[in-house]
């Protein structure tokens, strides 16, 4: 009898101690998780994960797309504190697949390249070529960034790099877009409000800016193949043949104004709008990402989607596999 009582007491003490220690173990585990430089596969943690706000992905199950973070986003609290000016942001991806972000019209950062700098004058856009070159446009000039003078390395937190102008732009407020084989498209606005699109071919830049389009509306995005140039204006995408000078509006329209245009290696068109990212399938635009104000860039078969509210960049590898849907 006494032994039974003793056993019961032992069990009770053990149970109490067990319950009292559990929270400490949990806290310890949590601390371990925070302290350890974690694995990239943290998302496979079965514990509840924090998901990107206001963002939904919709991908055809049959496609071989894989999604990864090319640049992890900020947490929600940090994003709120950062007070980012989303409309002023620029986005591009270099030849190595590293994102570059223009935070406003002076600051450019690329965490993957350990790059952060200010430009000496306001820029209106930048883009990267497959060759590794980064081109920057200002209100009136096309150029590139160069390392600052040695004397200017003053230890300031954010250095001011130099801007080397290449040429005067044919108009104002240059926006840069890359085409096939490092062809550069430059959209400019004329003082009267009209818009022109020029082309600069690699290795033949000295030959001059070649005008390929005149339009009354603002050009929102440009992408190209060897023979065709696609231009997004408003909610419409136009196909232009520079040789024949023929303009053909694509029959597909989208419900929100287009903010960006990209083309996959299999000539699939992807557009970004103020509400998400859509892919042109069978003559219609299908939404694949629903998120506010994304920016897009396709580089070597990967679609990069920039989420300006959190500064995260998601990479959609093998995005060209969406073209398989055209044959289903």
């Amino acid at each position, binding site marked *: 009898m006494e032994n039974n009582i003793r056993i019961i007491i032992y069990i009770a003490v053990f149970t109490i101690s067990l319950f009292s220690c559990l929270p400490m173990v949990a806290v310890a585990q949590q601390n371990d998780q925070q302290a350890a430089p974690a694995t990239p596969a943290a998302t496979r943690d079965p514990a509840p994960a924090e998901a990107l706000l206001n963002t939904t992905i*919709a991908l055809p199950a049959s496609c071989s797309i894989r999604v990864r973070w090319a640049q992890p*986003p900020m947490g929600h609290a940090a994003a709120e504190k950062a007070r980012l000016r989303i409309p002023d942001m620029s986005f591009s991806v270099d030849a190595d697949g590293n994102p570059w972000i223009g*935070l406003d019209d002076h600051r450019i*950062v690329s965490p993957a*390249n*350990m790059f952060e700098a200010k430009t000496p004058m306001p820029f209106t856009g930048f883009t990267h070529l497959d060759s590794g070159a980064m081109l920057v446009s200002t209100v009136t000039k096309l150029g590139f960034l160069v390392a600052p*003078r040695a004397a200017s390395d003053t230890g300031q937190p954010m250095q001011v790099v130099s801007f080397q102008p290449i040429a005067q732009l044919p108009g104002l407020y240059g926006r840069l877009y890359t085409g096939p084989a490092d062809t550069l498209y430059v959209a400019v606005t004329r003082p009267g409000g009209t818009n022109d699109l020029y082309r600069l071919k690699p290795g*033949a830049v000295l030959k001059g800016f070649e005008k390929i389009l005149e339009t009354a509306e603002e050009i929102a995005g440009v992408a190209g193949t060897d023979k065709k140039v696609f231009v997004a204006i408003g909610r419409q995408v136009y196909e232009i043949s520079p040789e024949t000078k023929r303009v053909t509006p694509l029959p597909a329209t989208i*419900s929100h104004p287009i903010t960006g245009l990209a083309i996959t290696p299999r000539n699939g068109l992807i557009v970004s709008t103020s509400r998400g990212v859509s892919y042109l399938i069978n003559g*219609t635009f299908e939404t694949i990402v629903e998120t506010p104000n994304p920016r897009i860039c396709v580089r070597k078969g990967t679609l990069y989607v920039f989420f300006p509210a959190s500064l995260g960049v998601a990479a959609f590898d093998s995005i060209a596999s969406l073209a398989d849907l055209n044959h289903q």
Partner: protein
Amino acid sequence: MKHSHAIPLFLLGALALGTPHIITAGAYDDLVGIGGQPGNVPEPSNPEPVDPSSGYDNSDNSNDSSNTGNSGGIFNWFKPKPVDHYQKAAEIRARADRAYGKGNYSDAVKLYKRALRHTPNDADLARKLSTAESTLAANRARRNHERHVRQQEREAAHKKPLQSPVPPLPATTVRPKPSPIITAVPATFVSATQTRSSLRDIKVRIDVLRKNSPTSDLHTLDILLAKYVNTWVQAVSRNDLTDKDRESLQLEIPVRDVDETGGKPASISKNSATEALAANEEPSYGGSRDLETMLARFNADRAQQGAEQLGEKVAETIFPENIAGKFGDILALGKVSGELSRDNTPGAIKEVVDIIIGKLAIPQASFAVDGGRIYSATAFLALNKFMEDSTQAVGGTFNRKEFWESLRNQMNTGQKAVMEWIGGPDGK
């Protein structure tokens, strides 16, 4: 008898000498004549005629005055002052003349002025002084001019190495002599301004060549283009240029608003663009309407569940093995079926496609190190220090010097890519 007349005259003369200023010149001459001619008196040098209006009546006593010079006779003790002035002036004028003859005009002017102090009404002296002064002024002006010319020559000699090594532009007319050898070697960098000038010269030659013989001299065109690009690259690759220098080194790239045949580019008129927008005021989503509707409904359902308000804490939904983890970092939430039409025409056969709906999970652990690249979720918390913070977060120490060295190398690599993109010989 003769002496009896002489005594009173002597007395009168003595009185007159006591008051020489009162006695007229004629009376004085009479007295000198009485006293006799002094011996061994030197001839005055360069006797000059005196202006009759000078106040001195020298018409007949210039020699007499000299006769009353240094010796001879008792009357020489009472030699009047004006005589000394003339002699002094004459002596000084002689020295002035010698100085003038030797080209020492400054001294000549000084001496003439001194002489004029003794004979201020000497018109000839005044003329000589005027001549000497004008000659002196002219001489000084000439010297200044020569000095200026020499200074210019010296400056020109210093500037000579800065001049462009690029040979001058060929004349538009064909010359029989052989053309200069052109190489693609860049022009030596002296200054941004000089390089700009060199670039303009080369560009003009390129334009002339393109205009005159667009197909016949491609080799020379290639070389000139290469030289143009090389010269520019050499200049802009320097690290010591100011922003103003860089601005001046901007290339002159033409703008071609029409193509080579004179044809205008494609255009989208305001009307067509506006019509397209108007037609899309009530957009027809076509096949995409189904998917958008599904997404909207899907998200609305989730919002009702309160997931959005809970900070999007979601757990990975269990999926069939064939799709679990297939999409990488997507937290798959569900699967819906969407209809995709084969084309955008009504009544077209629609395909049913399974759509995976998911969320993008923010990595729980903020840092992932991959091949030396640092990804940090906290990178932008403090933008000014995020490099240091990110590096320290993964156990490293951020070295700003190394960072800038790396940055410079990285930017130089990018710069080279830009140069290649701009192109040279291939870009005819």
